């Protein structure tokens, strides 16, 4: 049974790869999306058949709740507001990786596992809040302009330093949970700070980048719980997302650094 499940994951990975390939060309894109959805269904069914699963009510509840929200949102969203819908979905994916990483802590043994837990929480967290801000800017829930203030770079540097310190401390003392909470809090804050200085017009590029991050978060979560399908699919999304982000930048005749740091003013004038 274990082998059959692993084989199903291999097939699912192949379907993801083929699906992504077909999504790149207009004639086959819809078929590609279908294939990748079939791969996802296969992976989920295989995961449900695993021997470690003894209780199904919470899984089913999660499926029903998440499926209903996703389906209703996808079905009734206006055509013009689809990019922000993607951002929102992406944020949920990031949050899911954060939770999986945090849950894996209970069984974590090695320092390597702790590092991957930190990564999945960090990337998942900043993907979550970053995507929420991107959604807010695109849907004009919050102002779409670039938000900058004096000393922003200093604040951001402090946040990054705080993340590094708490990550190291967490790996050294995994039993004291305050470092974990600090990492979660700071990564959520960092997601907001990274996206607010970017103007609404650049949001599609940002969403594409955050999409790549959510893949990396899934990949890190895969290492945390030893799941090869998470590693493969997450890495695929992470890598292809970065390339797509670059292509989108090129189509706008900008560089990625230019988009990401345009709000700070210093970089943009040099490059254009």
């Amino acid at each position: 049974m274990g082998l059959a499940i692993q084989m199903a994951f291999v097939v699912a990975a192949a379907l993801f790869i083929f699906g992504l390939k077909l999504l790149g060309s207009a004639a086959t894109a819809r078929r590609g999306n279908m294939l990748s959805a079939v791969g996802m269904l296969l992976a989920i069914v295989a995961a449900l058949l695993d021997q470690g699963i003894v209780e199904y009510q919470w899984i089913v509840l999660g499926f029903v709740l998440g499926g209903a929200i996703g389906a209703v949102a996808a079905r009734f969203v206006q055509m013009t507001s689809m990019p922000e819908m993607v951002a929102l979905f992406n944020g949920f994916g990031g949050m899911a990786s954060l939770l999986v990483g945090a849950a894996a802590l209970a069984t974590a043994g090695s320092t390597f596992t702790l590092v991957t837990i930190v990564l999945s929480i960090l990337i998942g967290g900043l993907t979550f809040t970053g995507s929420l801000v991107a959604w807010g800017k695109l849907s004009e829930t919050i102002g779409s302009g670039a938000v900058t203030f004096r000393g922003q770079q200093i604040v951001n540097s402090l946040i990054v330093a705080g993340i590094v310190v708490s990550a190291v401390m967490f790996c050294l003392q995994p039993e004291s949970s305050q470092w974990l909470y600090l990492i979660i809090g700071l990564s959520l804050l960092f997601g907001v700070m990274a996206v607010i200085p970017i103007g609404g017009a650049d949001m599609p590029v940002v969403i594409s980048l955050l999409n790549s991050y959510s893949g990396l978060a899934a990949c890190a979560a895969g290492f945390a719980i030893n799941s090869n399908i998470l590693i493969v699919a997450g890495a695929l999304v992470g890598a292809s997302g970065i390339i797509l982000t670059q292509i989108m930048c090129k189509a706008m005749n900008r560089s990625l650094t230019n988009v990401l740091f345009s709000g700070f003013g210093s970089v943009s004038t040099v490059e254009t």
Partner: protein
Amino acid sequence: MELIFLVFILMLSIFLGFELINKVPATLHTPLMSGANAISGITVVGAISLAGTGQQDLSNWLGAAAVALATVNVVGGYMVTDRMLAMFKKRGSK
């Protein structure tokens, strides 16, 4: 599973991901992003294994919440992508 094999898998998948995407027409940027986003919902597989352990502990609850969130990503992601692509076909653009 041996860690080193997982790292090998990771490296190969990253290269593959880089190679998969090239020369995408501009109209397909958003659907491709959305389709890839749906795949990142694969976290649901990890969440399932945490949510079904039968132990009523914190990681079980976290896993259940992760199942719900990742399912939103998966179901919504694929459906939105399909709607976008269906629109292309209707318009008859190439």
